[in-house]
């Protein structure tokens, strides 16, 4: 018998692995965000589309560029930077000038991710870093809102979208007078709530026929997309659940104390960026704890902080800062919530 002799190749155990890799997870997160993107384009038209495209392109380009400059292989094909781009776009007002969006994208990826060493080493969610930067640098455009579902949104941009680089945006008032003649206050449901104690109907919040940033006006859709990721085990449901439950609980307590001033738990859940934050941002694996108990603490912390900032802080929306704060705390949370190991001998003190 002269069959070719086998050669022995070397490899260490385990020889098997689960086929879900980082790029598969990240790609699925992108898929899960696409319906949200589509809906925001449907609501806000061309401007929203341009915003998503510009943010994503600049984020991807930034990471690619830095990798090249550092002489490393580009890491953009792990898909994580695409998530950052889309997420950032979804947190910006639809009328946000594109050049500012590009700057925020660059800042978010450069400072929030590349600076730390890239995927896996970033302390905070890069999209939120970008947004926090925008909030500080471009305060007025960041709080300028436009109505959704205006006529002609698929044929023309909101004027401020196309502001020339390094120029402040022109006012949208002419355009507003044209598309929303019956008067548009320019306030989001959260602002209405905070400053005028006017609650917005939950159905409107759910379906997003309101003003707001591109991605925060469709709570229901975001939730459904999140369920897809949870079903595929690509997202930790505990985080989302922890955020939402703690936010609902705390605001429920305030609501019971005085329903005149404080919003109802339902309003809290479905308004503003809470849903987007709970589903797509807080669940950023890198910036959340890796232990099970840690994840519960982390999620609840975000929910509680959000409500506190919303009710008592100077801003009407607190999700972003709540998540950034919890991100920063997550290594600490991980450390104090180490799992109880099998067969731990009682008298031996475990660390922490």
């Amino acid at each position, binding site marked *: 018998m002269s069959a070719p002799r086998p050669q022995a190749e070397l490899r260490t155990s385990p020889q098997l692995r689960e086929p879900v890799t980082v790029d598969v997870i990240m790609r699925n997160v992108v898929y899960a965000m696409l319906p949200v993107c589509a809906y925001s384009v449907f609501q806000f038209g061309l401007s929203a589309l341009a915003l998503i495209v510009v943010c994503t392109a600049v984020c991807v380009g930034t990471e690619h560029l830095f990798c090249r400059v550092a002489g490393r292989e580009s890491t953009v094909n792990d898909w994580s930077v695409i998530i950052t781009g889309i997420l950032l776009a979804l947190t910006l007002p639809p009328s946000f000038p594109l050049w500012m969006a590009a700057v925020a994208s660059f800042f978010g990826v450069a400072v929030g991710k590349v600076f730390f060493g890239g995927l896996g080493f970033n302390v905070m969610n890069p999209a939120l870093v970008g947004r926090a930067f925008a909030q500080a640098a471009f305060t007025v455009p960041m709080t300028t809102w436009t109505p959704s579902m205006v006529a002609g949104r698929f044929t023309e941009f909101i004027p401020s979208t196309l502001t020339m680089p390094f120029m402040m945006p022109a006012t949208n008032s002419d355009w507003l007078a044209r598309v929303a003649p019956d008067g548009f206050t320019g306030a989001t449901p959260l602002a209405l709530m905070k400053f005028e104690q006017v609650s917005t109907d939950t159905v409107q919040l759910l379906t997003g026929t309101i003003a707001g940033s591109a991605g925060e006006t469709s709570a229901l859709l975001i939730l459904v997309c999140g369920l897809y990721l949870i079903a595929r085990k690509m997202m930790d449901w505990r985080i989302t659940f922890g955020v939402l439950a703690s936010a609902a609980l705390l605001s429920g307590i305030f609501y019971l104390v005085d329903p005149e001033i404080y919003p109802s738990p339902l309003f809290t859940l479905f308004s503003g960026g809470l849903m987007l934050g709970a589903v797509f941002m807080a669940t950023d694996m890198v910036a959340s704890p890796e*232990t*099970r108990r840690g*994840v519960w603490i982390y999620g609840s912390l975000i929910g509680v902080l959000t409500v506190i900032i919303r009710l008592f802080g100077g801003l009407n929306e607190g999700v972003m800062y709540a998540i950034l704060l919890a991100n920063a705390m997550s290594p600490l949370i991980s450390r104090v919530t180490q799992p109880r190991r099998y067969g731990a001998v009682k008298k031996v003190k475990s660390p922490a």
Partner: protein
Amino acid sequence: MTAQLATRIPADLRGGTFSHGVHPAENKQYTAGKPIQRFAFPSELFLLLSQHAGKPSVPLVHPGQEVVRGEPIARADGFMSVPLHAPATGTIKRIDLVPTAKGPRKPAIILAVHPGESQEMLYGARRDIDAMTPKEIIQAVQDAGLVGLGGAAFPTHVKLSPPPDHKVDTILINGCECEPYLTTDHRLMLEQPEDLVMGTKILMRAMGADRAIIGTEDNKRDAAEAVRRVLPKDGSMTVKVVPTKYPQGAEKMLAKALVNREIPSGGYPSAVGLGVYNVATTAQIGALLPWQRGVIERVVTVTGPGLDKPGNYLVAIGTPLRFILERLGFQGGPQYLITGGPMMGDTVASLDVPITKGCGGFLIFRPEDVAAQTVPKTYPCISCGKCVEACPMHLNPCQLGKLAVKRRYLEMDEYHLFDCFECGCCSYVCPSGIPLVQYFRVSKGMNRELKAAAK
């Protein structure tokens, strides 16, 4: 008990499970239905003097000596050692270094098998187990050269000799065989349930335990049923079926699943009143002890996509891998030869590696099969926590991995590095493709070295 087929398992016969763990594709279908077949004898057997944990055995034979199948050819060197028996009638050729699965060449007795010998004659004499004291039984177990056939190859008589202050009340027989592909324990339970029950009885006597639980996974219900049919009527032995999950067959996980006890970190099962033995070991005890015989062969599952004729074979100890593969129609070219199961088994470097007592399986993977199980690129840890959710020891492989990368080996003690038994669950689930188990092996070595250097 009547021999009715249990389609639904009554609650008292069901075991629990342990938390965490993974569910790799079982791939047992290739060999689960294949009855155990005797494999041919090669012209030469390579009998490693060290195929067990502990001190190598000491040869009793000299080159040129004729030996009979089953005759002792090497003696135990002290308590932490076992003897070796001739797996075939033949002539001792020489004592020489041969390749081992782990890599380095080790001394072995090389036995030229008599051609044309029927190999039916067998050394040994009947004796009455019931007349033996526990001490005598334990001695007899050592004389039989028995080691944990589940893989660890720890001398069985040592496991039968717990510290005097430990009282063992329950014997657990491990028939989980949680490693994918392997089916030796499954076939043994199906085909030799009497030996298994006999062996269990002997173990119970040796340890003074009054009950025994044979645990198997729910993908082997037919085996559970086969064993149930021959259980003694007194109710001292039960068969429990536990959910199929890797690594259910690890001693600690099994203890948790069957009797909900946790073996303390760094301690023996006897610390919580348990003795845990593998099905293959127990069946050999049942078959060998009443005849004063020693371990000379074992059942090996030879399978994997790189093989035409997978099956369960009764192979003489010392048979070289090359001989087995050539007879089973391997496909040529580079192959990955894995000893043991795919989760904890490593590849062997040479085809001249002989079968040892602890080797229950040989897997042959082609390069394309391995490629399908490899992450093309390793990503940084994304702190996804999947490894934390998978680790059956409830460690934090994520943190351990990060410390290993930073070469902070001593700090890894804080995260209980040495509780890791290298089951592979963490590497299996890691979406970043980080070779965590490999890191931990290296880290354990470095950690020990650093500590030794500090002294």
